[in-house]
């Protein structure tokens, strides 16, 4: 009997290569596109704050393109929002909510609601996970998303100010990052309770495009490790940008899997993961999936498989302007490669 996408992804995440028929094609980050929205007649920004709409959009890449994941939420502002940061949900159907907030001066200024799991859009996300679990939960893995503690600190203190603080008042940055440890872990655990199979900890602001590897080790890595330790299910740690110099620290976080950006050298990263965690990546979300052709996508997928990724995935969140044709090409490349 053929494996379901859910089984394939879950086995691959745990490194059980011998038990699967082919490398799964999934995504650690958001997968919704305008083309999928048009097909459903469901759009952002409503899909960011309505549980049913969020669920339908979260399953669209699976149902419409065969991408082996159902996911939510689609933005990285949920946690910041419940901590009092101004959030802009956007006006257009391709708008991703952002945090235009100018930053708390002091970590002590951040209001942490006691019942934060009932605040903001958290109930929406949890409800969407439940709906997706009921609908496709037997076939596709439900992968939900949280911020990493450093990235949340970047929202709370405002990233430009946080970067200056790193050199001037580093203890303060650590205090900002500390806020996320329990909060994110509790949120992730609530996502598991709602039906998530895997939680991605997205640490987009900890990219080496922004932080030096040493800064990553000081201000991002220990907080990811502490947070992931408290999360009760399988985790993916995703960091954007060129990860070559932080792969070792990403592995050290204790995440089940690390998701790396296309700028990361897989030939160097993959051997480091062996026996310690699994790795997914890294189809180029711009040059292949956004501007590319089915042939370019196919070549990248096959290259990733030959390099030895445990799961094929886009190197980052899918652009909402990605064509379904190219998402399908990504999935089909693995199916065809293993059929040959």
């Amino acid at each position: 009997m053929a494996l379901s996408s859910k089984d394939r992804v879950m086995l691959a995440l745990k490194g059980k290569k011998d038990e699967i028929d082919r490398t799964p094609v999934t995504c650690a980050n958001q997968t919704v596109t305008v083309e999928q929205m048009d097909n459903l007649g469901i759009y952002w920004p409503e899909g960011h704050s309505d549980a049913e709409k969020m669920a339908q959009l979260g399953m669209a890449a699976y149902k419409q393109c065969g991408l082996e994941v159902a996911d939510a939420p689609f933005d990285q502002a949920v946690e910041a929002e419940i901590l009092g940061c101004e959030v802009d949900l956007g006006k257009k159907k391709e708008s991703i909510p952002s945090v235009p907030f100018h930053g708390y001066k002091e970590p002590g200024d951040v209001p942490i609601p006691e019942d934060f799991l009932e605040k903001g859009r958290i109930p929406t996300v949890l409800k969407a996970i439940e709906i997706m679990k009921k609908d496709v939960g037997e076939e596709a893995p439900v992968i939900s998303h949280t911020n990493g503690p450093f990235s949340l600190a970047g929202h709370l203190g405002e990233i430009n100010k946080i970067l200056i603080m790193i050199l001037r008042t580093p203890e303060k940055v650590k205090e900002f990052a500390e806020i996320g440890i329990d909060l994110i872990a509790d949120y992730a655990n609530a996502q598991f309770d709602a039906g998530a199979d895997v939680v991605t900890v997205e640490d987009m602001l900890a990219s080496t495009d922004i932080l030096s590897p040493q800064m990553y080790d000081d201000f991002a890595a220990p907080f990811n490790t502490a947070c992931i330790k408290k999360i009760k299910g399988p985790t993916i740690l995703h960091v954007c940008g060129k990860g070559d110099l932080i792969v070792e620290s990403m592995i050290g976080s204790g995440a089940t899997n690390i998701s790396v950006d296309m700028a990361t050298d897989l030939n160097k990263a993959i051997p480091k993961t062996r026996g310690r965690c699994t790795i997914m990546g890294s189809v180029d979300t711009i040059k292949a999936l956004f501007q590319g052709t089915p042939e370019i996508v196919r070549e990248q997928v096959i290259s990733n498989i030959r390099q030895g990724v445990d799961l094929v995935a886009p190197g980052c969140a899918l652009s909402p302007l990605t064509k379904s044709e190219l998402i399908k090409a990504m999935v089909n490349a693995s199916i065809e490669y293993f059929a040959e």
Partner: protein
Amino acid sequence: MVILADKAKDLRTVFRRYSLEAEPASPDAVIKTGLPSDPNFSKVAKGVIDGDAAAVESSLKAAFGAGIDPLTAINDGLIAGMNVVSDLYEKGLYYLPQVMIAADAMAVGIGVCEDKLGHPAEKKGLVVTHVAEGDIHDIGKEIVSALLAANGYEVINLGRDVPVEDVVNTVREKKPAMVTGTALMTTTMTAFPRIAARLKELGIVIPFVCGGGAVTREFVEAYDYGIHGVKAHHAPHLAAAAVKGKSWKTIREDYEDITGGYAYKW
């Protein structure tokens, strides 16, 4: 009228293509090589490199005491220091936080020099910077703006999530030598061709340097005026070319030479 010396040519020799793995370097070695030999200037430059505004201020005052004029202090001290910072960033030895505090220290130093002069130093030219409409990610734009200012350009920083019309109107009214746009996301970079088209309708011809996360050369070169800004520290070189009157087409074609031998990776 007082004019800042054009250091762009000196900078060009500093920015050579560099492979971190083939040629590991330490920050100390780069700093040692790049520091001016005259102790009056080296202290000022070191203050910038360390992002230590207080050290910049005190060493500038000491330099004035030794009879050095403020403009020479800007060129041979502050800008010399910022050149080293750019070099460290290019080599992957400095990251954004260090560049940001260096630019802060530099700005304090310029202020101290201008106070001594009694008037603002003449700027090399005007550049307008902005982050695309719908996009709030402004780290790149802040670095571009800081590096331009540190290299003696006047910068009108329009901020983030800037409507197309605001960019167009500012360019029309202020007549900058160059305009830059940054965008992190594929969904927001679509504002750039709209800006270029609007400027064209108005008969305005200007180099429009676009860069940021999702922005690729292919995307930017699909519209007139567009020049793909690859790295933030290329901005002062591109501005120097624009101020010299080079056209957007020439800057696009000569990008590698202008920015110091950066090789495009497609």
